[in-house]
């Protein structure tokens, strides 16, 4: 009997290894190794290949510093705007009491089936000098707005492109908060705003955190939106990195900047996650 159990346990362990080994190998090969490559290039010099911090220091060059600062500013602004739009929206959607949240998710994912570059280009049409907005404004006798090729246009593009990634996680958590919890708060004397502030908001923190992440990271690193809506004269950090690879062919410099950016993102995430004690607590970071 014992012998048989031992054999079974061994078989189980073998099966477990057979199951998990492929993914472990895959993650090492396609997630960890590529990142190590960036670290390697970022810390070695272009000629010779010796260890250097020059590539990291590039970020302190005045032009790069200004670029990074602008990128952070615009992405923080867009992230906050996304949150301000998405949270009331998710509350309104929750109030609809739909039977399944599949429909809502579909509604906000569907635009992705139109290529996002095209959708961003369409904003040129809406925003430009003789675009849709200015046509409407002049039709009612208001002065024209000059939005296209300004940071405002870029923020608008970021908000537009990444808003669904804020809406869906927040809606997902909000729709899971039970009515009885909200009624219990009302029963204990809380009015609508007290319920919102003390119960709903804290309970929806995990959704807010993942929404913030999913909007902030792509906003910070995008080079496409600034290309299209910034008219090429507003440089963001993503564009600088892209040019190091595609134009200057200076991989080491590009990796140095990427490394700084990556570390910056992970630090931001770590800070945000720290404030979110309710998250599942399974991640090591």
């Amino acid at each position: 009997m014992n012998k048989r159990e031992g054999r079974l346990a061994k078989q189980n362990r073998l099966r477990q290894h057979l199951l998990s080994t492929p993914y472990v190998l895959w993650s090492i090969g396609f997630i960890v190794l590529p990142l190590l490559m960036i670290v390697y290039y970022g810390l070695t010099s272009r000629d010779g290949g010796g260890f250097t911090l020059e590539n990291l220091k590039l970020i302190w060059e005045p032009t790069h510093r200004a670029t990074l600062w602008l990128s952070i500013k615009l992405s923080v602004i867009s992230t906050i705007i996304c949150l301000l739009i998405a949270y009331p929206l998710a509350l309104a959607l929750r109030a609809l009491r739909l039977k399944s949240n599949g429909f809502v998710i579909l509604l906000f994912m569907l635009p992705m089936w139109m290529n996002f570059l095209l959708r961003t280009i369409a904003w040129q049409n809406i925003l430009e000098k003789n675009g849709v907005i200015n046509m409407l404004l002049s039709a009612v006798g208001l002065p024209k707005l000059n939005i296209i090729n300004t940071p405002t246009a870029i923020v608008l593009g970021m908000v537009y492109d990444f808003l669904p990634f804020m809406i869906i996680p927040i809606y997902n958590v909000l729709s899971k908060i039970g009515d009885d919890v909200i009624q219990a708060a009302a029963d204990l004397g809380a009015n609508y705003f007290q319920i919102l502030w003390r119960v709903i908001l804290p309970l929806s923190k995990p959704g807010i955190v993942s929404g913030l992440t999913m909007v902030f990271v792509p906003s910070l690193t995008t080079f496409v939106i600034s290309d299209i809506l910034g008219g090429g004269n507003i440089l963001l950090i993503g564009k600088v990195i892209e040019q190091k690879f595609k134009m200057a062919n200076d991989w080491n410099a590009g990796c140095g900047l990427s490394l700084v950016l990556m570390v910056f993102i992970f630090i931001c995430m770590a800070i945000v996650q720290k404030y979110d004690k309710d998250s599942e607590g399974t991640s090591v970071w």
Partner: protein
Amino acid sequence: MVKRLIQKGYIGLVIVFLYAPILVLMVLSFNGSKYRSKWGGFTFKWYRELLENEKILNALWTTLLLALFSALLATVLGTLAAVAMNRMKKLPKAIMMSITNIPILNSEIVIGISMMLLYFAISFSLGFTSVLLALTAAHMPYVILNVLPKLRQTSRSTYEAALDLGASPISAFFKIVLPDIFPGVLSGFMLAFTLALDDFVITHFTKDAKVSTLSTVIYAETRRGIEPEIYALSTIMFTAVLVLLIVVNRMKAGAAKKLAEQQK
């Protein structure tokens, strides 16, 4: 009542914001003028010319193949990975979970660059396959995160009951566990497919000159002006998906109604 109205009005406003550019693109696909900012009368010309535009049709084909295969690959591998992770002990699981989260937290540009560097390091030539693998790696975590919660809900006892009734572990997985977690697998697949279809950045860094997808074609044309055939193609694609979704929804609603009537 007023509150209800404000809520619905607000939802409507956000939906208009999200779909306005799509409407603009649809209008542009019927624009007689080749230039975006000029209206040259209504025409079906671009739809006809689309059928002869080999460059765009090739890009479409490549895009669809990449999206389909990368999503399939990500779904199969991701589901297996989720099953494996679900059974891991606490610490290995936490480590794997963190690694899985990297591509989601990381920016696309860093993923694209890092994959390119890897290919370069192992002298793997860039092309269709390199893009396919990069997309798979980038989107697999989304599949895992969709499947894992479903696996956690699935009780181990049903799987064990299947074994007890004589099923082999493999057939127990396919007959019992998979149907249970299928909604998660499906939404993981849909997400991976949609993300791959819309991807530009990762493809941009991991392709060679011979591979072109819709995104890369559009990006290359941003400066000199988009060929109107692309508007036509996008309109067709979007409308097709919309119609498909409406049909599926109707069928689901019909089936639910039928079921409700039967239960009466």
